[in-house]
C-alpha cells in the first residue's frame, strides 16, 4: 500500500529492554531487542520456549503484566510514532485497530459466554463506532472471509460448539476485523492438528495477499518459518542472536543456536529401511534469566564456545547486507 515509503519500516522495534522483578532478582526478559517489519512483509520470530518471543509481542502491544514487568528502554515505532510514549487511551485505540493479535490457544482465547459473532462485532463497535446491526453484519462477512461455511448460522454459535481449527479462524476474523496494519500471530497453530495447521497457514497467506497486512509470526516450528516468512529473527534468552532473509537463515545460518534449531527438525526419510542417524538436539535448557552472566547467554550449551564467550557478550555483526548475527566466531573470522 505505502510502496513509496520503503525506506521507512512499518514497525520498528529498537533496543527494547523489558525487566521483570521476581523473587530471585531482576530478570531481563528482553535485552536490546530490535526488529524491523516492512509493509506487507511476514517476519518470523523463532526460538525455544522462554526465549522472549511472546514477551516481544506483548511489549509491542504494551500488554506485559505490570507489575512485575516493565519496559525499561527502547522504542517501538509504528509508522514513525513511538508507541511507548502513548498514553493508555491512545494505546487502546491502536490495539485491535492498527495492531492485532492471534493467540496460541483457540480453545481458551475466545470468551465462552458470548457468541462468536458478538466477539467479532465487539472490536468493530469499539473502533469503528458501528451500530449493533452493522457490526453483526460485518461479523458475518468476516466469518465468510476466513472460510467458515454457513457464516450466518455460525455467528450465532458459542465457541464450544466449534472445532479448534474453526475457533482459530474466528480468532483470525477478530484480528482482521478492523483492517490492522500489523497482525502478531503468537504460535497460531501450535495447538492444532497438522492438517489444520496447513489450512490456517494457507488462510493467513491468502489474507496477507488480499489485504497487504504485515504479519509477525511467532513460532518454534522451522517448517512454518520456511513456508510463511520473508525475514527471520532468531531469539535466545531475551536477545536477538541472528536475523536475516529467510533463505539465508535456513541455508546458511551463522549462529550456532540457529544451526542447532535447524538441525533439530526431523526430516522425512526417503529410504526408511536404511540406518537412521539419531536426531540432533541442543543439549541443556534455556538458562534462568536472573542468573545470566556477562558473557554470551548461549555459551554453556554451545559446542564451539571458547574463552571469550564466557567473558563478553558478542555484538551483532553484519554477515551480509541484511543478515546479522551475534557470535564471537564471526568476529574471529572463523565461521562455524
Amino acid at each position, binding site marked *: 500500500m505505502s510502496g513509496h515509503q520503503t525506506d521507512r519500516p512499518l514497525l520498528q522495534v529498537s533496543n527494547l529492554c523489558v525487566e521483570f522483578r521476581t523473587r530471585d532478582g531482576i530478570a531481563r526478559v528482553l535485552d536490546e531487542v530490535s526488529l524491523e517489519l516492512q509493509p506487507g512483509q511476514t517476519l518470523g520470530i523463532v526460538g525455544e520456549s522462554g526465549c522472549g518471543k511472546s514477551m516481544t509481542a506483548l511489549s509491542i*502491544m504494551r*500488554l506485559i503484566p505490570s*507489575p512485575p514487568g516493565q519496559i525499561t528502554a527502547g522504542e517501538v515505532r509504528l509508522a514513525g510514532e513511538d508507541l511507548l510514549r502513548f498514553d*493508555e487511551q491512545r494505546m*487502546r*485505540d*491502536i*490495539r*485491535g*485497530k492498527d495492531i*492485532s*493479535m492471534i*493467540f*496460541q*490457544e483457540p480453545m*481458551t*482465547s*475466545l*470468551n*465462552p*459466554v*458470548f457468541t462468536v459473532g458478538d466477539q467479532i462485532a*465487539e*472490536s468493530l463497535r*469499539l*473502533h469503528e463506532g458501528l451500530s449493533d446491526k452493522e457490526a453483526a453484519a460485518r461479523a458475518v462477512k468476516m466469518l465468510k472471509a476466513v472460510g467458515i461455511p454457513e457464516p450466518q448460522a455460525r455467528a450465532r454459535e*458459542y465457541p*464450544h460448539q466449534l472445532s479448534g481449527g474453526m475457533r482459530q479462524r474466528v*480468532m483470525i476474523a*477478530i484480528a482482521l476485523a478492523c483492517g490492522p496494519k500489523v497482525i502478531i500471530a503468537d504460535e497460531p497453530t501450535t495447538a492444532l492438528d497438522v492438517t489444520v495447521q496447513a489450512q490456517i497457514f494457507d488462510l493467513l497467506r491468502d489474507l496477507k495477499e488480499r489485504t497487504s497486512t504485515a504479519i509477525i509470526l511467532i513460532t518454534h516450528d522451522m517448517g512454518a518459518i520456511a513456508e510463511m516468512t520473508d525475514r527471520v529473527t532468531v531469539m535466545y534468552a531475551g536477545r536477538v542472536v541472528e536475523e536475516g532473509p529467510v533463505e539465508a537463515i535456513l541455508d546458511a545460518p551463522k549462529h550456532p543456536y540457529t544451526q542447532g534449531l535447524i538441525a533439530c527438525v526431523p526430516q522425512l526419510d526417503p529410504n526408511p529401511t536404511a540406518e537412521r542417524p539419531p536426531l540432533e538436539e541442543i543439549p541443556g535448557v534455556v538458562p534462568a534469566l536472573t542468573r545470566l552472566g556477562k558473557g554470551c547467554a548461549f555459551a554453556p550449551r554451545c559446542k564451539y564456545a571458547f574463552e571469550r564467550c564466557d567473558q563478553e557478550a558478542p555484538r551483532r555483526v553484519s554477515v551480509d547486507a541484511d543478515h546479522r548475527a551475534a557470535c564471537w566466531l564471526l568476529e574471529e573470522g572463523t565461521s562455524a
Partner: protein
Amino acid sequence: MFRRNYAAMFGLFLLVLLVLVTLIGPLVYSVDPFEIVWAPLTPPGEEATAPLGTDYLGRDILAGLIHGGVATLAVGLAAALITVVIGLTVGALAGFYLGIVDDILMRVTEFFQVLPALMFAMVLVTLFSSSLVVVAIAIGLVSWPPTARLARAEFLRIRNLEYVSAARSVGAKNTRIIWQVILPNALPPLIVSATLTIGTAILFEAGLSFLGLSDPNTYSWGYMIGSGRDNILDAWWAVTLPGGMIFVTVLAVSLIGDGLNDAFNPKLRER
C-alpha cells in the same frame, strides 16, 4: 434447559405460589393479623373463624401467614441484593486490580468477617430503628464478606485467562473487561450464592424477629415464631406453620438457584 430441570421448575412454582399468596392473599382474606378473633390457643380445624387456629392472644394464624409473607420476602430479597452489590463490587475490584487495592479491601472484608454477625446486626438495629429498611440493611451489611471472597476468587482465576488478554488486545479498557468480559464468566457461582443468601437473609430476619428486634409494627413469619415460642408445647401450630412457610420459601429459592446455575452454563445449553 431451565425448563427441563424439574427441581428448578418445582422451586419456581412454589415461589410463584408464595408470592401470589402474599400479594393477592390479603385482598381475599382481609382479616387483620393483629386483631384478636377468637379464644387463645385454639387448635387448627376447630373453629371456622380461624381455620388454622389462634395464637396465645387469640390472633388468627392464617391471617398471619398470609400477611406476614410480604415483610419476610421483601427483607430477604433486599438483604440479598445489598449483599450481592457490596460483595461483588469489593470482590471484583480486589480480584482485578490486586496489589494495594486488594490488600485494603480484603482487610476490610476480614474485619466484617470476624464480627459476630448476629451481634453486629442486633447493634445496628438497636442503634438506629427497628424498621424493615434498617433490618434489611443490617442483614446485608453482615452477610457480604463470603460473596466478596467468592467474587474475588473468580476474578483472580479469570483475569489471567487468555480471552481476557484477547479482549485487551482488541483495545478494551479495564471497566469493560471487569463488567463485560470477566463478570459474565464469574456469574454462575455468584448467582447460586445470591439465591442461597436470600434464604439465609430470610432466616436471619426470622432470628431477629424471634429475639423481638425486628419491626414490631410489621407482621412477619419470624415474628410469629417469636411470639409463639413460649407455648410451643401446648400450641405447636403457632410456631410450626410459619416455620413451614419459611422452610418452603428457602427451599424454593435454593432450587431455583441450582437450576439457574445449570441454565447459565453455556456448555450445558442445547447439545
